[in-house]
């Protein structure tokens, strides 16, 4: 086995995992605390990228672009929560699914109206365009930045949720929100804040990946489904579960795509392996979720209930 290749793929897996974590953290919180299925989370992922692209091009600075995108996403999340989402908390999951699906259509068309049908590239500042060499391993500097920033955000989130009063309320909300409101906590405020926090994290995910993939319409619509898989596997409402499951899925997906054909070739013909491997690696993630749901429906790390 070629270790440089394995290491490169490991870094790719880590990057995908971190991206998934940024998306799923907000998803699992809104799901766990507000009992809300929010497909429109995908739209914040996309809008973060577009806000960042526009601001970066306008101010000619990636850093200012990021700040603008975070503020823009937060503001938009506030408006959407107040106008639409807050009416959905009491509805059943089907209504939430459809309404947020409607939001996706609106957001995608809105982006089409404002930015046009083509994607938008984000130019990276000079120092981030280079590559880092460690022995034979060559890694683009920007990918290392994504991984670094992602891990930093994960650590901050861990600190926020486990060490602060706000985090205590969030955990309490995930365990038993009736009790929380009975104790005189302003639940509405908590819901709005958590929704904005989740949207900003999703936006960060979008803007971090956009310099590699471009900001494009509907860029979040596929990855949101994987993010749902992450939170189901991790256990709904659990940040720790989302982190572990996101990395797990990032690695499984990346390694599956990279090495499954070689593994299959060990016990079947090369031709058959090359046909079967892409299909199997693409469904590996969903297979894992189906297994987890059957074996442990509450997920790997469910929040302690009641």
């Amino acid at each position: 086995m070629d270790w440089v290749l394995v290491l490169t793929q490991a870094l790719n897996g880590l990057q995908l995992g971190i991206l998934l974590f940024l998306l799923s953290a907000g998803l699992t919180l809104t799901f766990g605390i507000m009992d809300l299925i929010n497909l429109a989370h995908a739209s914040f992922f996309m809008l973060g990228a577009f806000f960042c692209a526009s601001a970066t091009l306008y101010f000619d600075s990636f850093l200012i672009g990021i700040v603008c995108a975070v503020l823009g996403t937060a503001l938009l999340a506030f408006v959407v929560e107040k106008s639409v989402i807050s009416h959905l908390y009491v509805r059943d999951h089907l209504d939430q699914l459809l309404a947020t699906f409607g939001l996706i259509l609106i957001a995608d068309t809105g982006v089409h109206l404002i930015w046009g049908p083509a994607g938008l590239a984000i130019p990276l500042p000079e120092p981030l365009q280079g590559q880092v060499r460690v022995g034979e391993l060559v890694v683009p500097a920007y990918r290392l930045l994504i991984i670094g920033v992602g891990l930093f955000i994960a650590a901050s989130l861990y600190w926020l949720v486990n060490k602060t009063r706000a985090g205590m309320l969030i955990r309490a909300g995930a365990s038993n929100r009736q009790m929380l409101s009975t104790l005189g906590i302003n639940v509405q405020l908590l819901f709005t804040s958590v929704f904005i926090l989740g949207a900003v994290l999703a936006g960060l995910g979008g803007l971090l990946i956009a310099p590699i993939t471009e900001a494009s319409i509907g860029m979040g619509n596929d990855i949101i489904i994987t993010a749902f898989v992450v939170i189901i596997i991790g256990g709904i409402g659990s940040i720790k579960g989302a982190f572990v499951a996101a990395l797990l899925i990032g690695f499984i997906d990346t390694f599956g795509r990279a090495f499954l054909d070689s593994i299959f070739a060990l016990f079947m013909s090369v031709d058959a392996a090359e046909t079967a491997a892409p299909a199997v690696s693409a469904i590996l993630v969903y297979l894992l979720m189906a297994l987890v749901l059957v074996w442990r429906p509450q997920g790997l790390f469910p929040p302690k209930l009641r």
Partner: protein
Amino acid sequence: MKGISTIHRMGGGLLLLVILLTPFIMLWLGKPFWLDIFTRLVILAIAASSLSLLLSVAGLASFGHAAYIGLGAYAVGIPVYYETYGGAPWLASYSGWWHLLLGVSVCALFALVTGAISLRTKGVHFIMITMAFSQMILYLLVALEEFGGDDGLSVDLRSDFSLPDLSLPGAESFGLPSVNLPSLNLPPVNLPPVNLPTVSLPPVSLPPVSLEEPWVFYLLCFALLLLVLFIVSKLKHSHFGRVLQAARQNEQRVRALGINPYRYRLLAFVVAGVFAGLSGFLFANYAYFVSPSMVEWTRSGELMFMVILGGVSSLLGPVVGASVFVLLEHFLSRLTVFWHLPFGLLLLMVVLFGRGGIIGMLKRDSQQ
């Protein structure tokens, strides 16, 4: 109350009659393309009706219904592909009976296996696991390089329902009226689908039924819609349907009566899957094309939207929903390329304010 329900029944019949006749009237008015739109409408109505069996009757929010449409469609696409380009003789065929048999059995099997697993979960987990299975089908189809992968596969000709011995001697001389002729006479075209069920009996005197004829195809779709609606309505009011509805409202009580809803739900899941596969069969024939994009989760979302839009409480709700969906799509997309915007807004409005869908609103009006 009795009077109101009669009004509704008449309204339902009227609606179906309007759907059946509109393309003919439009043709008479010199707008033949409406046939195309209405064929799509009827096929989507079949898919939506099958989903409503799960969504409205059994209360199971399946988010992967598009998978069955894809399976039913590829059950046409793959045999036709092999028949045209050679390979896999056990699979290759132009025969519509074979396509139907294949599609129905694959869908039933897939529904049986995934349903048996999915139905062990509840609520949001059920939504997500059905979606996951549908994604598996999506990526499986994408990975099938031989059948075009991402790009899909064109279906060279429509499923063939004529009997092999009949199609040889002078089949042409029976000459169904060609649709391209502006001066077409409608009555003779109306007959063939009525004769369909008796095809197996006398091998003589039957005009060959060619689905290539758009009118014949439309009437076949419509007849299948009626069949699906009839079966769904029968199921809904049978013991089976009552158990499903009772279990939706209060599962514990049903269990206390000694009935385990699991088997009933599984059967409903299989029936709904088979009907959706039927609409997939029609879709492949309608579009001469199958592709993995038929299985994307947004398609499942649109189907749900149709059911909710029309209203979950009524048999014809999904038909109304599919009609409004297709017509809106048609008019809005002609108006602007940004037609998804009003569409999304409508979806929001229906969910936020329109409880009970369009039929629910009509009922509220007529009860006042």
